[in-house]
């Protein structure tokens, strides 16, 4: 309970709430698009660099199992999301596949918020976790699009190209490579920019995410209660699965909690563009509202502390 409150009072979560509030108040507040994109570039590159420099000093053995678990999660979650949406969400195959692509991938900001919450609670995730984010971003999207199969009126080739060369992957993977090749020593000079300033920059970013979420909240009415409930249950289910998998993979308490948040999160950066291209007939109001309007705030406020609790229980037993 206290962990829940503590999580809600972090500047990152409060800035998200400020964004939502500003939208509900019909304020003209907005982060200019170039600034928002500049912040995204900064955050993705910073994550990549951090993960990469951790990989540079980690032993392959240490990373291999978590990486394998990540791939496994990238295959399991879109499958479960697809069937749950088809069965309980009553969506058609195309829309189910579209939603599955989002839940199969990962929300970078949820990952960051989870890392910060875990740190504030006195735990710490493994340093190489950002590398797993990059690993988790793509496969879920591909698996999910396979479900759409013949429904995919869009171009598969273009969709794959869109995911693989999309700026988020290029920055994350590029950052990882740069971090690995340069190593922690050579990265020291860029630390003040990419590390110290990171959390503050994330706050600004969260304001815009809050504004975008606020815009989506209006769409909730059309989405229907059924989907909103699923948008809360799915991250719980996937997140718990992730915590278990992370624990099995040998991650620390903090690491398993963050891993759970990653697996339980729904992408709204890489997935939407790919889905739009591959499944243009799928309804964006449906998948974006679920990912950004329901699951993201749910994880931010409730999911993350629960995953941490679960990880503690599992690891102390």
């Amino acid at each position, binding site marked *: 309970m206290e962990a829940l409150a503590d999580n809600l009072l972090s500047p990152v979560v409060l800035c998200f709430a400020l964004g939502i509030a500003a939208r509900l108040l019909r304020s003209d507040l907005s982060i200019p*698009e170039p600034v*928002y*994109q500049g912040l*995204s570039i900064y955050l993705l590159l910073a994550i990549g660099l951090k993960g990469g420099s951790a990989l540079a000093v980690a032993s392959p053995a240490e990373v291999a199992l978590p990486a394998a678990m990540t791939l496994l999660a990238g295959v399991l979650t879109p499958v479960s999301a697809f069937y749950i949406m088809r069965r309980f969400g009553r969506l058609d195959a195309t829309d189910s596949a579209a939603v599955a692509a989002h839940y199969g991938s990962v929300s970078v900001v949820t990952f960051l918020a989870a890392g910060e919450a875990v740190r504030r609670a006195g735990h710490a995730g493994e340093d190489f976790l950002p590398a797993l984010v990059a690993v988790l971003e793509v496969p879920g999207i591909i698996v999910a699009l396979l479900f759409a199969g013949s429904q995919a*009126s*869009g171009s598969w080739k*273009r969709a794959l190209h*869109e995911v693989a060369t999309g*700026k*988020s992957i290029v920055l994350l993977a590029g950052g990882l490579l740069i971090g690995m090749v340069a190593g922690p020593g050579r990265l020291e000079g860029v630390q003040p920019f990419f590390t110290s300033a990171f959390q503050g920059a994330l706050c600004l970013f969260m304001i*815009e995410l809050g504004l*975008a979420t606020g815009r989506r909240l209006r769409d909730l009415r059309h989405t229907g209660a059924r989907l909103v409930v699923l948008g809360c249950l799915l991250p719980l289910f996937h997140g718990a699965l992730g915590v278990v998998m992370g624990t099995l993979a040998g991650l620390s308490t903090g690491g398993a909690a963050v891993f759970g948040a990653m697996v339980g999160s729904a992408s*709204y*950066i890489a997935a*939407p*563009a790919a*889905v*739009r*291209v591959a499944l*243009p*007939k799928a309804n*964006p*109001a449906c998948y*974006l509202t679920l990912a950004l309007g329901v699951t993201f705030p749910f994880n931010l406020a409730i999911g993350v502390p629960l995953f941490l609790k679960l990880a503690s229980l599992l690891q102390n037993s």
Partner: protein
Amino acid sequence: MTTLQKLTMVGERLLRDQLLDVLRRHGVSGWTITLAEGEGSRGVRASEWAGRNVQIDTLVSRETADAILEEVSERFFEDWALIAYTVEARVLRGDKYLS
């Protein structure tokens, strides 16, 4: 001064490269792109991260305009947020834009 059509297409940013490909295939020699925001019947946008709308203006002959409009209409109009229209324009040394 030559009379040409100014063909304008406004649509999702993700369409950008595909629309330019269409122009290129129709032998169009130039275009101007501006960033725009918009609302329409579909109100669809992949995500903030992909950016807002893109507006493409190109000066072409009437035939080229019609051919492009036809292709765009067939390929993109059903599933994508897109609007396309032409306006008559008198173009300085416009013959160089005839293809």
